[in-house]
């Protein structure tokens, strides 16, 4: 005998999940992530194997020459130019490896600037330092950069989460 219930849900029909709400959720998620994604456009990538200090600063980073000081190496644009342990033992304010790199870079930029009016040597530099490096080392890096004509620094930090 056929009751109404049996006619509506015969045993052969498989259960289907409600796709509409799922798709809704996913679409909203996609839009949200896309929005986040596009605003993060031209940012400097944090260097690997170092932890940036936390700060309340809100100034946006610029795309400049990048110096990273990790616990083992001092890196310029991702290539190691000096070892931290060696530099800590060395007297004086100079870091020869870094100085050489910066000088080359500056000469390069100035040479390009002769031919291209849009390029000027600004002396801007972003420094990413691990949160545990001593001031002594930072000071050496700053002194070396200053001596080679780079005098406008941005210290990279990671933003505090508290909003």
């Amino acid at each position, binding site marked *: 005998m056929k009751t*109404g219930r049996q006619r*509506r849900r015969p045993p*052969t029909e498989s259960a289907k999940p409600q796709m509409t709400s799922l798709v809704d959720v996913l679409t909203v998620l996609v839009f949200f992530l896309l929005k986040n994604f596009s605003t993060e456009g031209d940012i400097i990538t944090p260097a690997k194997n170092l932890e940036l200090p936390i700060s309340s600063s809100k100034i946006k980073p610029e795309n400049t020459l990048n110096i990273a000081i990790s616990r083992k190496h001092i890196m310029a644009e991702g290539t190691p130019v000096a070892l931290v342990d060696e530099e800590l033992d060395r007297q004086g304010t100079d870091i020869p490896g870094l100085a050489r790199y910066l000088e080359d870079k500056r000469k390069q930029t100035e040479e390009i600037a002769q031919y291209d009016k849009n390029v000027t040597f600004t002396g801007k530099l972003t420094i990413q330092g691990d949160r545990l490096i001593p001031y002594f080392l930072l000071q050496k890096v700053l002194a070396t950069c200053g001596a080679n004509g780079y005098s406008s620094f941005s210290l990279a930090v990671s933003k505090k989460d508290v909003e």
Partner: protein
Amino acid sequence: MSGAVAGPAPGGGKHRGGIASKGGSAMGTPIDLDMTPMMNMLIILISFLVTMVVFTQLAVIKFNLPPQAGGGGDQAASPDSTQKGPSVDITVLVSENGFQIIGEGRKLDPIPKGTKDYDYPRLAQFMRKLKEEYPTAEDVVLLIDSAIVYQDIITTMDVMRENKFPNILLSGGVYR
């Protein structure tokens, strides 16, 4: 059996539950959209975006050295900062024992370091008081001991900036 379900619904209402019946198509057969490829695409897109999202928000702290400085020491005193208002030289000494504010020829009470961290709230309190006393002052010199850890320097700079001393000058500490 299934024919009865998929077939046209003469009665409307009771025959199918939910949205389909209210949709009220004349034929009564709602087309079943195949959502699977769309779901696939969305899920792939989401996993891609999630991996690309930058979780650590970056910011920077800016400061300048005067050109050609840094040969000998690293006195980051900017010469043009003295132009506005009477200059008040406030120096904050950061050592391993804590802070000491020195300014205008007098020393304020030292702020000892706590058991594991510096006493930043206390320093902030002192800087606020100093700001009230010298509202035009904007410069502060940080005299930092060479063994101080980077995070502490940054946090000290934060305290200075939050208390309206935006021109932070780093001074060469004691060399080893």
